[in-house]
């Protein structure tokens, strides 16, 4: 029996295997992954794995025995190069061909690469996989100068680990502020302040023009501002959906593989899950492409249910987190969907939350060391809860009281 072929061996693939078996899927499952590792967690890569606090085997989402017991074959270190939707086959880089009855793309995303001159010099790194971190780690030594291109979550998380390790850290951001594409000016100002306090130099509105080899293996970074000399450069300038094989096969792709609320792509036998999928979110009333663990897990559950003939729409409030220094940032919803900002608590106390309201209802929350605000905020978003902004802004009014 042809069964299920899953292209991509990350968070979504691991969850899909688990959920398919829970839902009663009985046919064989084959998971094809181009990295040599079994499905692993990516969030710690720029945090505790980079810092060395977490060993590699602790990244693995499930042990090898799980896949054995689930009857899921992992084909690792091999790339799927072509899909034939008519013949229902997947061709691998080895030339082998796998037949499928149902196909899932859990291909995730790949880093956006620098296109500036000199971007291929040694000493310039990206951070997406285990291998990337292993390449960076030998250079991650106290006293070394690191230039981080891009002040998004990845860049700032790397900056936090580097600063704690004692590297001399400079973050170069082309936009006016760090985290500009993902959050409000209030949060950007807060995180920039935290990093500056930790000794990180942050240059905003500073595009990178190119790279040159310096003396002794250093990299000269030419920017719109000062010229910087670095022992290593890490670029975190965003990720792109890994959709080329799907697109070449003829599946509809538009900023991700286009799927419906059951994770079904434009071919009835094909699903796309996680970072690589562009899906509708009925709660938010719009299509999204999300880069998050939550999305990989919850969409995989919805896909498994649909594949097993028990379709249940995928409709969850997106959530994310970031760890930097002593700060746990927990995010629910999409702040860009809010019109009004309500701040609860004092950012200077390093414990506060920013709520984003749309037509009087909570649309998103960024909570720093503030779990109640995050957890209740998430419920409020799901319920489109109307709140009194004055009460929401008053930390003496318990969050639970606002749900009543």
């Amino acid at each position, binding site marked *: 029996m042809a069964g299920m072929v899953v292209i991509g061996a990350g968070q979504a693939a691991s969850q899909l295997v688990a959920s398919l078996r829970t839902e009663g899927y009985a046919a064989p499952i084959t998971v094809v992954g181009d990295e040599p590792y079994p499905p692993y*967690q990516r*969030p*710690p890569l720029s945090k505790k794995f980079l810092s060395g606090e977490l060993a590699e085997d*602790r990244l693995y*989402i*499930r*042990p090898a*025995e*799980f896949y054995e*017991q689930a009857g899921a074959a992992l084909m690792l270190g091999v790339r799927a190069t072509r899909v034939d939707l008519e013949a229902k086959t997947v061709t691998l880089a080895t030339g082998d061909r796998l037949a499928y009855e149902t196909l899932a793309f859990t291909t995730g995303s790949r880093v956006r690469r620098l296109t500036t001159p000199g971007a291929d010099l040694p000493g310039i790194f990206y951070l997406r996989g285990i291998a990337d971190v292993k390449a960076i780690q030998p250079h991650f030594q106290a006293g070394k100068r690191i230039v981080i291109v891009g002040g998004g979550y990845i860049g700032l998380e790397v900056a936090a680990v580097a600063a704690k390790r004692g590297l001399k850290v400079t973050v170069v951001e082309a936009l006016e502020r760090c985290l500009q594409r993902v959050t409000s000016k209030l949060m950007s100002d807060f995180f920039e302040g935290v990093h500056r306090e930790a000794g990180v130099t942050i240059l905003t509105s500073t595009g990178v023009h190119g790279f040159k080899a310096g003396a002794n293996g250093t990299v000269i970074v030419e920017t719109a501002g000062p010229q910087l000399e670095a022992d290593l450069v890490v670029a975190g300038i965003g990720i792109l959906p890994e959709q080329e094989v799907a697109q070449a096969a003829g599946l509809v792709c538009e900023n991700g593989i286009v799927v419906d609320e059951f994770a079904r792509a434009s071919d009835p036998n094909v699903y796309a899950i996680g970072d690589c999928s562009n899906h509708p979110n009925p709660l938010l009333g719009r299509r999204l492409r999300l880069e998050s*663990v*939550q999305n990989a*897990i919850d969409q995989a559950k919805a896909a498994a249910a649909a594949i097993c003939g028990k379709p249940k729409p995928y409709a969850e409030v997106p*959530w994310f*987190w970031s*760890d930097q220094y002593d700060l*746990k940032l*927990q995010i629910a919803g999409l702040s860009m969907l809010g019109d009004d900002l309500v701040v609860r608590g004092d950012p200077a106390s390093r414990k506060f939350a920013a709520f984003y309201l749309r037509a009087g209802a909570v649309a998103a929350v960024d909570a720093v*060391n503030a*779990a*109640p605000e995050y*957890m*209740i905020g998430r419920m409020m978003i799901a319920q489109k809860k109307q709140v009194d902004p004055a009460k929401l802004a008053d930390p003496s009014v318990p969050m639970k009281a606002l749900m009543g």
Partner: protein
Amino acid sequence: MPKITYIEHTGKEHTVEVATGLTVMEGAIKNLVPGIDADCGGACACATCHVYVDAAFAAKTGEKSDMEQTMLDFANEVNETSRLSCQIKVTPELDGLVVRLPASQH
């Protein structure tokens, strides 16, 4: 290695050895104990690794951080023995630990 017994909400027991330094959550995942999702992988961000710690081990499992306590406040079926298993580090003292899993994570 310390032995930990995980009891599913159905009463099914899993007694396994877990290396010190790992968390009680990781011990469950590595040994295929169902009922602990741990969506966030141990970042104390999702409250899907909720367990009830046997009273005899309450002191040995350490103090709850404020973050853990507040995350637990919003989990289902919480009582005074509730913990997030990703926040309990396995130590030699935890040999014989018994944790029960809530039905809501089934």
